[in-house]
């Protein structure tokens, strides 16, 4: 056997992937060839240093994340102009809705009532301001977008703060119907925003936030503590509340005097 042939098999040899016969051939050669033996040691050292991972990166994500993955792919395929829409949008949305909807029994926690009230107040307050504000004579589209972004981050902040503060007595379940509805509304708003011309950082944040909202939207109406912890973990891991606060104030500040702080092509 030539050195060259042995070298070609050294990696498989080191991983013990050769068949018995070849393994024997390589062993025989190595016994009498210092050069190839030294080469094997170098290769083994390289293999040892570049260790295959003990834990796969995909294992860093929750089961819920993977359950939603295919759904997110389909959303994106559709958004990127599916050449052949497989079914129309109404049916896809309906399908999603029925997929995640489960029968629920009632077990209200006190905090939920507060969140429901907050939700009602927020809907009552935010929607009118959207109509009144912001359409100034010098108004350019970028302001409109900033208003929408600020509004979107504001609503998301309220929702995520609510989720962070929910207390669930151990072993009990809480009704998240309202939160899930709010999350779905925000996902729609996020998709709409994603198609507008928003700057890269906002887009990045909108997308990161959307992942959390999807997890929330796909929860069962009745959630227990571990379910909620998954969403909370996402919020903490991404430092989401802080980032949303920064973003909300950034886009709010850019509104009143028509001097947007962002780079824009409109001026």
């Amino acid at each position, binding site marked *: 056997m030539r050195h060259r042939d042995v*070298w*070609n098999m*050294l*990696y*498989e040899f080191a991983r013990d992937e050769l068949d018995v016969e070849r393994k024997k051939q390589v062993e025989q050669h190595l016994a009498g060839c210092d050069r190839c033996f030294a080469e094997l040691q*170098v*290769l083994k*050292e*390289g*293999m040892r*240093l*570049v*260790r*295959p*991972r003990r*834990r*796969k*990166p*995909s294992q*860093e*994500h929750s089961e819920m994340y*993977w359950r939603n*993955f*295919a759904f*997110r*792919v*389909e959303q*994106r*395929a559709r958004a*990127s102009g*599916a*050449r*052949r829409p*497989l*079914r129309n949008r109404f049916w896809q949305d309906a399908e999603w809705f029925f997929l995640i909807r489960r029968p629920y029994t009632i077990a209200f926690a006190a905090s939920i009532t507060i969140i429901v009230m907050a939700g009602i107040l927020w809907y009552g307050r935010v929607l009118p301001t959207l109509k009144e504000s912001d359409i100034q004579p010098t108004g350019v589209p970028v302001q409109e977008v900033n208003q929408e972004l600020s509004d979107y981050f504001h609503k998301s902040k309220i929702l995520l703060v609510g989720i962070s503060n929910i207390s669930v007595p151990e072993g009990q379940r809480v009704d998240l119907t309202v939160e899930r509805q709010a999350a779905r509304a925000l996902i729609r708003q996020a998709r709409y925003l994603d198609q507008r011309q928003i700057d890269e*950082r906002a887009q*990045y*944040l909108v997308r*990161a936030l959307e992942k959390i909202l999807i997890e929330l939207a796909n929860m069962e109406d009745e959630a227990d503590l571990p379910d909620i912890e998954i969403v909370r973990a996402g919020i903490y*891991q*991404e*430092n989401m509340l*802080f*980032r949303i606060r*920064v*973003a909300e104030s950034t886009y709010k500040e850019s509104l009143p005097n028509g001097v947007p702080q962002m780079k824009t092509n409109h001026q």
Partner: protein
Amino acid sequence: MSAVRERQLVLRSKEGDREAFRELVKFHMRQVYDLAYGFVNDHDDAEDVAQEVFVKVFHSIRSFRQEAEFSTWLYRIVTNTSLDRLKQRKRKMKRQVSLGESESMELATNPGPIENLDYSVHIERALHELPTLQRAVVILRHIDGLPTRTVSEILKCSEGTVKTHLHRGLKKMRTLLQDLYEE
């Protein structure tokens, strides 16, 4: 999943069956993610690449010829998309440095478990020192453990080339990492 089942799913996906496509995604998503992560070493990018890969598959599955292995075709798309992403990232980093941007919203990369941080950072750095093909071979063959033949099909080169690149790549990685560990 059996090869027969996969072929059926691919056929049905080609005809526009969404259930079948979904099943293909579910079966391959973790592997695609892990492979993409091997290249981009960042969870946000890995997710984005993995999704982009399946969107590409969705749009182009009709042009996929059944005589090839579906997974090989899929991994080829993963490899290309990941390498594109790395190129984009290089360009973007240059741009950001020149703009002098630093904002809390940019600090979103996810380093993974702390005990692996130093280790994976070193490997990542060393991997980036390798020429593209060598790097791809080290990731696919050594880190992801795909068979030599599959790697050669993914990268469209001979098995001999895969072996040579693997050998050279690991030796170079050894030199680079030894320097780091000895520091």
